[in-house]
């Protein structure tokens, strides 16, 4: 293509000067050259289909220009997902390799449009907005590699987020046609709405060999623990509505149900709950008589009252998230965003990212048949815990539910943690909101140990040049029985420390030592130190020091008791 442009720019300048009889000759020659060039170009493109396609994706910006791939009717179909797959059986760990950064590399297949033999596309939507966001987030992250040979994980660009828009068999064939498919090894598929009517399977029905599945709505029977990743169902409202974070605290309603497609049985039970508890329970449904133009997905009604959705979620302490036809519900995301504590009633549901998130701290999970009792159960939760959960719910949304990017990168991080478990993110990193991360104290020495006396301690004495006081200190300290070692740090670069003697502390005698100068009496010294404290506090952002009113003394300190029987006699009389 570029060739023809170059050629054109040269040609017209030359041709007019030529004689007519040569023109034919020239045209013939040029066309030969042109043909040759086209052939070369084709040769360039043909054998390296992957690289060239990547090249294509850079040049074009419309989905419709993606190369078309026609699936032969008899092209192979992968096997159904193997339920016994685990990382150590179905995942090829060799391709992830050992690297000092402990980070997996993810490759994304270039976009292609798949059609069957009759030219019908395999998916009614093609690439969806959400999947596009997900893939571009991955390609922007440091997980991404464009070198397929270095990749540990491969993500097809075939969008399987919603099984309903897919033709299952053809999608499977398309997967099997991927150049590196290799029975699905190390391939990761993202799916949020699995199954189809009437019985709604809880995992993607597309046969996928050994591929890992990041799925929304797994049940305990389809989820392969430690292999699949349970992800949330993304709610498009996350991007549309900006709900400002509301501080945790009591809300107008206690329990709110805002799902529109509840089964009759559930709705009946909720209505009974409403009758019993009146105002505290708010039961919303979709609006039947909305004026034209209003977005029905953004309104909910109770009888004739109309409420804005999802804003109304912020008005309740607890929000019911009941299973529908599927286990995973997009409303979970809305509820978390509103900082409402989700009450999840979906038996056997594997909660999103449950491998790393501690849902106990952000939700209440109740068996479905306890639905009539939820009021009493929820009333039993201390209000401080409710506030804690409200905060935690919002934080989970902020960190892991907010966007397709968050969902995608969290999924990759979870897989990364499995491959490099010794470098995995900790429970605290996953679960503590920034507030807690700042205020909590996790001591590096957390085991309650009372160390034995035997190894003793090392004394470190810092000194500048006051040799007398140094000697005095050394003399005193060396009397302590538990002293194992004494280290003197000589801070004066202009003067060398006293020779030889400092080797053995016990030799020191210092009869002429005088009292140490009263440094602390010096006013400027105090002012300086106050300034230091202020400076440090401003750098820390808070004052980390704590004030206590106690002091540790030996048990019998200054008690009316014979001194010679005390472990530390005369301790108060220095």
């Amino acid at each position, binding site marked *: 293509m*570029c060739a023809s*442009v*170059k050629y054109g720019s040269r040609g017209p300048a030359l041709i007019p000067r030529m004689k007519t009889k040569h023109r034919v000759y*020239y045209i013939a020659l040029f066309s030969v050259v042109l043909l040759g060039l086209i052939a070369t170009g084709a040769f360039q493109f043909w054998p390296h289909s992957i690289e060239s396609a990547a090249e294509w994706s850079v040049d074009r910006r419309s989905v419709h220009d993606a190369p078309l791939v026609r699936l032969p009717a008899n092209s192979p179909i992968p096997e159904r997902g193997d339920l016994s797959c685990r990382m150590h059986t179905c995942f090829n760990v060799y391709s992830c390799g050992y690297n000092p950064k402990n980070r997996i590399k993810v490759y994304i297949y270039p976009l292609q449009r798949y059609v069957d033999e009759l030219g019908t596309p395999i998916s009614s939507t093609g690439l*969806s907005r959400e999947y596009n966001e997900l893939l571009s987030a991955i390609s922007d992250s440091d997980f991404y590699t464009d070198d397929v040979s270095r990749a540990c994980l491969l993500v097809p660009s075939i969008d399987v987020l919603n099984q309903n828009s897919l033709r299952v068999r053809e999608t499977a064939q398309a997967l099997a046609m991927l150049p590196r498919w290799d029975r699905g090894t190390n391939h990761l598929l993202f799916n949020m709405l699995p199954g189809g009517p009437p019985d709604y399977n809880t995992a993607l029905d597309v046969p996928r060999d050994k591929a890992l599945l990041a799925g929304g709505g797994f049940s305990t029977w389809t989820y392969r623990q430690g292999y699949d990743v349970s992800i949330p169902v993304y709610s498009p409202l996350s991007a549309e509505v900006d709900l400002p974070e509301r501080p945790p605290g009591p809300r107008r309603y206690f329990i709110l149900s805002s799902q*529109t497609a509840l*089964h009759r049985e559930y709705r009946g039970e909720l209505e009974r709950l409403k009758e019993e508890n009146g105002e505290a329970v708010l039961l919303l449904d979709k609006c039947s008589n909305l004026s034209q133009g209003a977005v029905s997905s953004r309104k909910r009604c109770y009888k004739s009252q109309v409420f804005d959705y999802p804003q109304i979620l912020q008005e309740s302490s607890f929000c019911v998230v009941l299973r529908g036809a599927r286990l995973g519900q997009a409303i979970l995301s809305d509820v978390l965003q509103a900082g409402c504590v989700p009450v999840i009633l979906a038996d056997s549901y594997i909660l999103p990212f449950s491998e790393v998130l501690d849902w106990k701290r952000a939700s209440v999970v109740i068996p479905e048949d306890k639905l009539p009792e939820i009021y009493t159960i929820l009333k039993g939760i*201390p209000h401080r815990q409710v506030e804690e959960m409200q905060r935690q719910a919002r934080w989970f949304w902020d960190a892991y539910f907010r966007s397709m990017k968050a969902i995608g990168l969290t999924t990759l991080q979870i897989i990364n943690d499995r491959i490099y478990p010794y470098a995995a993110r900790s429970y605290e990193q996953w679960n503590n909101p920034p507030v807690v991360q700042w205020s909590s104290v996790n001591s590096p020495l957390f*085991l309650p140990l009372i160390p034995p006396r035997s190894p003793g301690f090392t004394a470190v004495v810092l000194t500048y040049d006051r040799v007398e006081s140094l000697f005095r200190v050394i003399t005193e300290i060396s009397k302590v029985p538990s002293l194992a070692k004494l280290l003197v740090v000589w801070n004066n670069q202009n003067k060398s420390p006293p020779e030889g003697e400092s080797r053995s502390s016990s030799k020191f005698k210092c009869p002429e030592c005088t009292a140490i100068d009263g440094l602390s009496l010096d006013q400027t010294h105090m002012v300086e130190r106050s300034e230091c404290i202020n400076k440090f506090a401003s750098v820390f952002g808070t004052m980390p020091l704590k004030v206590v009113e106690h002091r540790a*003394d030996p048990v019998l300190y200054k008690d009316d008791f014979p001194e010679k029987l005390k472990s530390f006699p005369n301790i108060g009389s220095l």
Partner: protein
Amino acid sequence: MQAKKRYLALLSAAASLVLLFCLGGVQVPATSSSRGGGGGGGPGRRRHPAAERPWPRFSDPLPSFAPPESHSDAAAEEEAEERGAHSSPRLKRDVNSSVYRARRCRMESCFDFSACERNGFKVYVYPQQKGDKISESYANILSAIEGSRFYTSDPGQACLLVLGLDTLDRDQLSPQYVHNLKGKVQGQPLWNGGRNHLIFNLYSGTWPDYTEDLGFDIGLAMLAKASVGAENFRPGFDVSIPLFSKEHPRAGGERGSLRSNTIPPFRKYVLVFKGKRYLTGIGSDTRNALYHVHNAEDVVLLTTCKHGKDWQKHKDARCDRDNAEYDKYDYREMLHNSTFCLVPRGRRLGSFRFLEALQAACVPVMLSNGWELPFSEVINWNTAAVIGDERLLLQIPSTVRSIHQDKILALRQQTQFLWEAYFSSVEKIVLTTLEIIQDRVFQHTSRSSLMWNSHPGGLFAMPQYSVYLGDFPFYYAQLGVKPYPKFTAVIHAVTPLVSQSQPILKLLTAVAKSHHCAQIIILWNCDKPLPAKHRWPATSVPVIVIEGENKVSSHCCETGGFFLESPVPRSVDFAFTVWQSFPERIVGYPARSHFWDSNKERWGYTSKWTNDYSMVLTGAAIYHRYYHYLYTNYLPASLKNMVDQLANCEDILMNFLVSAVTKLPPIKVTQKKQYKETMMGQSSRASRWADPDHFAQRQTCMNKFASWFGTMPLVHSQMRLDPVLFKDQVSILRKKYRDIERL
């Protein structure tokens, strides 16, 4: 002709030039397109270079994956409803429980929750039949259940049932193997297809393939099994338990071997292993390859071929060399002097080595693909072990060397915590198993991961008390919250004490003055009637009087601490500020000590003034109200009954409990010197203290308690906390707590 030649030359030159451009253009797309881009490209933004942005930004509007109307759940639901295909949720649950059975059992489908909801979480153990022999380990398991608070002797009350038949060893070649278990189990009248049964198993399958089959149909029963593989493990239903030996103690158990933290945390060896090498059969690959990594310096991986009778037959070229090297090192020496310990799979997935390494504070490096680690449902093993991959054996040394020393320090401490919390005795293993199941049954009051994985562990943190972590004394630091700044004073008035009500009222006034006091509860246990209304002092805090009751319900108060009974201390406020710094410990005044009486071979109790102490009397102490709950709900009825009958030792038991939880001594604060005199001064009180029986009883109590705990939990301390300027030579006016020094 010449012209033609020239033209030809020119042409070919031009052609090759164009060709070069073209090739160059393909190879360097960035340059070529930026030159020609002005004409060819659209009006869009400047394109990023290829390397930066491999996934294109599409300009065309893309559809959402789930259009709100057409395809949401609502539509699906309606559609289904129309066709009448959508079954009711209740029906769906019933279908689940008939479909998902045996290998696919889950709590929802195979467990009957109704019995548990009626009677709470009670466990019934089948009586042992006369002819049946059971192994020592199984006897320990059963007695641990029988000694626990979950035990019931009435099968009608039971939520969970445990067989009296020994199912631990299902290796047909083993002498412990119970024959015809199938028939025996089916014959049990309560078996009911295995529903709500829990079966313990340590060994299953036999040479050569060691399958995980138990040799009898377990039906709907849950398995608590060692060495279970992820493929056979039913998540949320089975429990993976550790493999433990016959010698594993029933209760108590040894403490972890870490005495103090060393910094930097490196030990003599980096990684060690010493064990058998299987020349053939399952599990041999990994151990056979260990010699590749062995370097005889800091990575010492030793194997021996000697096992079984006919090892000589299979022996390979390396056997003699390996055997010689093997004998050079002592296993225990290596175990305690290595930072990491390799735990490769044996014939079965789990091995004894795992617990040994854990106890020895040697961070286990797991090489056992597919092993569902013990209690993996609740324990986050990444914080205490390095989980390796058998396929990547050769990377193991560089992996463990790459682990930062801070992380090693944390891993090592966590091994000790986990060992002491869940593994050190059969009782702990059994209780942990039961607690895990209880958490599943009562899902909304279950422990969070934080409670399981941080000190003091899931067995001591009972979610039934509160689901809010800040209500426990253990998690303040982790959550970044402070203990509640108020306390409830509980004053216990006992019969002989009150000859006149004066001292009680005096105490009441004194306590009510404290800024931190939220309310006062008086337990009136006297023969005398309550003092007349007008005689009660006016207090700013509510006073609640409960007559004729011995115990305070632990749910009574919203406050942090308790302050019980006793002589009028002038420094309640001081003690309370100290307690706020140590909310998980008992902070009190009079202290006592325990000692080992080697002549009598038993524990002794002393109230002499010594240089250390291990208990403070709870008659005048501040402790977190959670301990009250724990006292009532954690301790077995036998100990509580004993205390009630004696009307003595309650405080000792509380000290035992708190020290067992915290592994730390209580805290003594300054008390007024003439404590003893005050005690003696109260005539009625004196009689109790002077009684020699009283003292002997306390001695007996201590030994009883120690035997129930399986070890002596009390810890000595030499420290007393005094106010900062206590007895310093400064003006009394500068001191905040002046009363303490004043006699």
